[in-house]
């Protein structure tokens, strides 16, 4: 009985300590303490994550990696050509340059992923080693070679959480590079869907989907022309209002150890 009472008292004490902790870490001093602990964590997380992702990479044959890389490069080129064509057309039509805010690429190391690696599923969240102190803010976009990975959902002092394109909360407008069809890119199950495309638009297998541009008033968000993936299947019904397509991403996020954040200057 005495032991039980002691247990209850200790529980109540630590419960209140935990509540106080919630409020303490919202203060300026709390944020500084958090920053210091994050700096201690980062090297350990980097080493652990890099060690495990290297192991995964070694499992794939070099030839397959080479072909994938070549394929990615060609798709990038195709997308760039199409973008240049569109840009030239737009410039011809209107002799004005865009007033897009200046952005710089900030290299970041991936510290961890939201889901287990050994399940071989793409992560819904990733943790990166840069935060507010380094200029990373909520809604900044994370990319790798012009391929979109996701958007910063939460940034602390030295670490940030990125919601990847596989996250159910991540939706943005996309555009097919060849056909120009516009739709909404969102996660579905373990994959990505290019949805809400009107029936009159033409969707084709192997067409590349890129971001159409969803930028907020601070200039943060999905800039146009970032690659999302390639269409692998089209779902079209005459009776439905919209058609959709399944997208296969151009990158395996579980293999990445570095990425880049598009930081608004």
């Amino acid at each position, binding site marked *: 009985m005495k032991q*039980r009472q*002691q*247990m*209850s008292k*200790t*529980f109540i*004490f*630590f*419960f209140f*300590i*935990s*509540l*106080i*902790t*919630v*409020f*303490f*870490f919202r203060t300026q001093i*709390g944020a500084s303490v*958090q920053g210091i*602990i*994050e700096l201690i*964590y980062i090297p*350990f*997380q980097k080493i*652990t*994550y890099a060690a*495990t992702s290297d192991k995964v990479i070694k499992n794939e044959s070099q030839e397959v990696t080479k072909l994938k890389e070549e394929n990615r490069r060609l798709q990038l080129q195709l997308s760039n050509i199409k973008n240049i064509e569109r840009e030239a057309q737009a410039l011809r039509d209107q002799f004005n340059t865009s007033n897009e805010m200046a952005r710089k690429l900030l290299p970041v190391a991936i*510290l*961890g*992923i*939201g*889901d*287990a*690696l*050994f*399940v071989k*599923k793409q992560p*819904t969240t990733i*943790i990166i080693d840069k935060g507010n102190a380094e200029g990373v803010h909520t809604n900044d976009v994370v990319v790798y070679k012009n391929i979109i990975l996701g958007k910063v959902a*939460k*940034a*602390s002092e030295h*670490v*940030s*959480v990125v919601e990847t394109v596989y996250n159910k909360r991540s939706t943005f407008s996309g555009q097919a590079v060849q056909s120009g069809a516009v739709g909404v890119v969102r996660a579905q199950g373990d994959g990505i869907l290019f949805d809400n495309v009107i029936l009159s638009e033409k969707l084709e297998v192997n067409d590349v989907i890129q971001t159409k541009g969803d930028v907020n008033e601070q200039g943060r968000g999905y800039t146009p022309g970032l690659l999302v993936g390639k269409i692998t299947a089209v779902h079209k019904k005459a009776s439905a209002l919209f058609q959709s397509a399944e997208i296969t991403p151009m990158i395996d996020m579980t293999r990445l150890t570095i990425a880049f954040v598009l930081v608004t200057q």
Partner: protein
Amino acid sequence: MKNSSIILLLFFFAIIVESTIISIPLTLVGLLVLFVNKKDTSIFLYAWLTGVLLDIAYVRTIGLTSIFFTTFIFLVSLYDKKYEIRTLPFCIIAICTGAALLGLLYEKNNILMHAGIAAMIASIIFLITSRISPQVHR
């Protein structure tokens, strides 16, 4: 003192692994097995500390996991009088429930699979500790 240092080191290792490679609640597993074996109030201190460190590693609201961990340990302690908690079936049921609730709290995917793997890890650790410590009965 020496024991507590080793426990803290193991928890730190569990937090690093949990936040980088696998999202299985290893810390919760550690806390449960430790409580089942020690039945000591000092586990609440570990629960609070590991909760804070885990929240920092995951960039979550700091303190929420501490609240969850301390409540979970307290609930487990309530069963101590009614049942024999130093048993493998109790450990499995408790960790499955705890891992599933934690998964729900943080909207994780594959909650059942995570709970299953956590139960497996808990069983292994429990069996190892039961060999080391003669007090533990299967």
